[in-house]
């Protein structure tokens, strides 16, 4: 010790000048016999470098208790200090990060989940004011306990398994008002140095806007699907490469295949083999150009029949023109197609039918011209022949006129302009007239009439006679092997019922209703004369009289057409 004091100068050497006063204080304390416990200080090394040290000083006393010196222990604590500083720095950084984070962060301590730390974001979300540190979480947030979150937190605390929620609606009481907002949040276990769980951490962010957007998207998608499922059209969505990823119910209903079977290019299985090449090529072209698609092809339905469809599709594109998806609809146009075919066949039949009397008219006029030429007049010893030619030409012209008026009737039916000229007349007489007229040109058939209508009838006599003539002519036409046609007229209550029965070829059951359609022609009727519109005209006339018309038939045994008219 003496040495130390003697070398007063030297201890000053290791103490930085600013701490000399401290040393003097220490010396005075030691002199009084007091010990100085550990304290941190700075000392200088030989080279003048400052180091952190822990200093402890105790007075040294002799037997009488007089202070004779001091023992001084110095421990280099530079590294400890650096480590502590680092921890402090890191804590500060962490704290700043937590505080300034836009994510809501909170730390709950212990089983009672006491709020230990909370940043501004979570304070705002919880809405219970800034002073929440030290309060139990569910004491502060009873509304969350009501929503079952206590159990969720306990589960995290007890098992250590994190809990992750995405776009979840949470009700929070703020300023006395319950607010529903959507959050993404993560609850995770906090562990102490012994790796024991001692709390729960919360990281949350409010995503109400995104969640609502997604909800709306989902809703609109759902609405689209529901609407699409209601449509009779086959609706689809495909990706940019043309792979179908959505098909509505109509697809399943028509084809009998499931969504999964139809998806991607599964639907191509339903396309008619003869159309497949065309469909694939059109598909490739459309995918390449990104243009609108419109194509007709046949699709096999679940009964194995192919039906014509019209497919329309368009690409939904991004701003840069890149195709996002394809949406399309495929419509069953079988009936339309059939009607078109029937119509075009009708036109071809009509022109054929008109050309026949036109041919005879022309030929008779030519013959007449030959007879009336100078040479002809010299040669011809039979003037009656010229008269015959004129009569024949006249007949042909009449036939033409009749055909043209039938054609006009078609137009009238289509426009709903078939007018009736209503008078009161003798129905029975009208029937007889009709039979007589058909008999003139039907050499091989006999008409057998049964029943008499005694009541006068109010209606269009000519039009109804046209109906009966048409039914009788058909009966003759379709029963060439038989010579009898039956016509039966009865009064049934307030109704007149007429039945025209032949013993001819008959009509297939499935076509019994169709025969009254405009342009419909029985397949076996194709080569027969006439437009094949007689029945639809008849049907229209009967309906105009508020009556009914229908057919009963058996293939090979004959057909009966009935009509009733209210009196």
């Amino acid at each position, binding site marked *: 010790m003496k040495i130390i004091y003697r070398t007063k100068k030297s201890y000053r050497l290791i103490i930085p000048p600013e701490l000399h006063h401290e040393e003097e204080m220490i010396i005075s304390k030691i002199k009084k016999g007091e010990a100085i416990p550990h304290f941190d200080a700075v000392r200088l090394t030989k080279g003048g470098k400052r180091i952190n040290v822990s200093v402890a000083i105790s007075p040294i006393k002799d037997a009488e208790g007089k202070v004779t010196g001091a023992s001084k222990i110095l421990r280099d604590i530079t590294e400890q200090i650096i480590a502590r500083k680092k921890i402090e720095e890191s804590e500060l950084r962490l704290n700043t990060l937590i505080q300034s984070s836009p994510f809501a962060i909170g730390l709950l301590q212990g089983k009672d989940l006491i709020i230990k730390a909370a940043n501004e974001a979570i304070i705002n979300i919880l809405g219970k004011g800034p002073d929440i540190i030290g309060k139990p979480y569910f004491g502060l947030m009873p509304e969350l306990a009501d929503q079952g979150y206590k159990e969720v937190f306990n589960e995290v605390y007890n098992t250590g398994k994190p809990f992750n929620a995405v776009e979840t609606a949470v009700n929070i009481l703020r300023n006395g008002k319950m607010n529903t907002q959507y959050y993404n949040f993560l609850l995770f276990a906090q562990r102490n140095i012994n790796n024991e769980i001692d709390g729960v951490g919360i990281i949350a962010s409010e995503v109400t806007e995104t969640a609502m957007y997604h909800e709306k998207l989902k809703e609109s998608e759902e609405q689209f699907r529901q609407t699409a499922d209601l449509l009779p059209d086959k609706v689809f969505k495909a990706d940019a490469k043309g792979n179908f990823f959505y098909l509505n119910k109509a697809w399943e209903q028509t084809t009998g295949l499931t969504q999964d079977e139809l998806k991607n290019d599964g639907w191509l299985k339903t396309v008619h083999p003869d159309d497949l090449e065309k469909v694939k090529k059109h598909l490739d072209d459309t995918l390449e150009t990104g243009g609108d698609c419109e194509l007709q092809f046949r699709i096999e339905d679940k009964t194995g029949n192919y039906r014509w469809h019209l497919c329309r599709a368009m690409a939904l594109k991004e701003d840069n023109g890149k195709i996002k998806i394809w949406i399309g609809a495929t419509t069953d146009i079988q009936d339309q197609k059939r009607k078109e075919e029937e119509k075009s066949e009708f036109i071809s039949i009509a022109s054929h039918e008109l050309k*026949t*009397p036109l041919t005879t008219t022309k030929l008779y006029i030519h*013959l007449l011209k030959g007879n009336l030429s100078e040479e002809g007049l010299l040669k011809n010893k039979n003037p009656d022949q010229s008269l015959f030619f004129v009569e*024949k030409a006249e007949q042909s012209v009449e036939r033409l006129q009749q055909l043209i008026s039938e054609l006009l009737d078609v137009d009238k039916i289509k426009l709903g302009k078939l007018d009736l000229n209503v008078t009161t007349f003798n129905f029975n007489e009208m029937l007889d007239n009709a039979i007589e007229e058909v008999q003139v040109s039907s050499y091989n058939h006999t008409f057998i009439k049964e029943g008499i209508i005694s009541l006068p009838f109010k209606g269009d006599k000519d039009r109804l006679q046209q109906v009966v003539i048409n039914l009788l002519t058909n009966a003759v036409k379709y029963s*060439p092997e038989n010579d009898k046609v039956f016509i039966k007229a009865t009064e049934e209550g307030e109704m007149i019922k007429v039945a025209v029965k032949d013993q001819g070829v008959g009509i297939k059951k499935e076509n019994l209703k169709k025969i009254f359609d405009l342009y419909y022609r029985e397949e076996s009727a*194709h080569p027969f004369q006439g437009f094949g519109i007689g029945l639809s005209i008849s049907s229209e006339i009967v309906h105009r009289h508020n009556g009914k018309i229908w057919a009963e038939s058996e293939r090979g045994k004959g057909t009966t057409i009935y009509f009733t008219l209210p009196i």
Partner: protein
Amino acid sequence: MGKCILIYDDDVEILTVTKIILEKKKYRVETRTRCDDIINEVSFIKPDLVFMDLWMPWMEGENALKQMKGNEATRHIPVVLFSANDSIEEVCKRSNADGYLKKPFTIDTMLQLVENVISEKK
């Protein structure tokens, strides 16, 4: 005896007028409104020329023509199709008919065609 011509058409008026025209030129004319017994009829009548309408009830003209051309005994007899059908030219080609007459036609075209076909076959 004049050459014999057999005409098939379901329209009686066409049969009447063509018969008058051809008889004026001293042809013998037979007419039928159905063609479903064509082989028997042609074998029996042995015509020098057959006129066949395309749209016939019970059996179509083209079918009857096929039967005739497929039969050893009848295939040498020339057949002229006549119809108001627009596709007659096409049908004529594919069915190996010897000529066609599109309705409406004139007396001269008909007689010219008859003469040509019959003389060709001589």
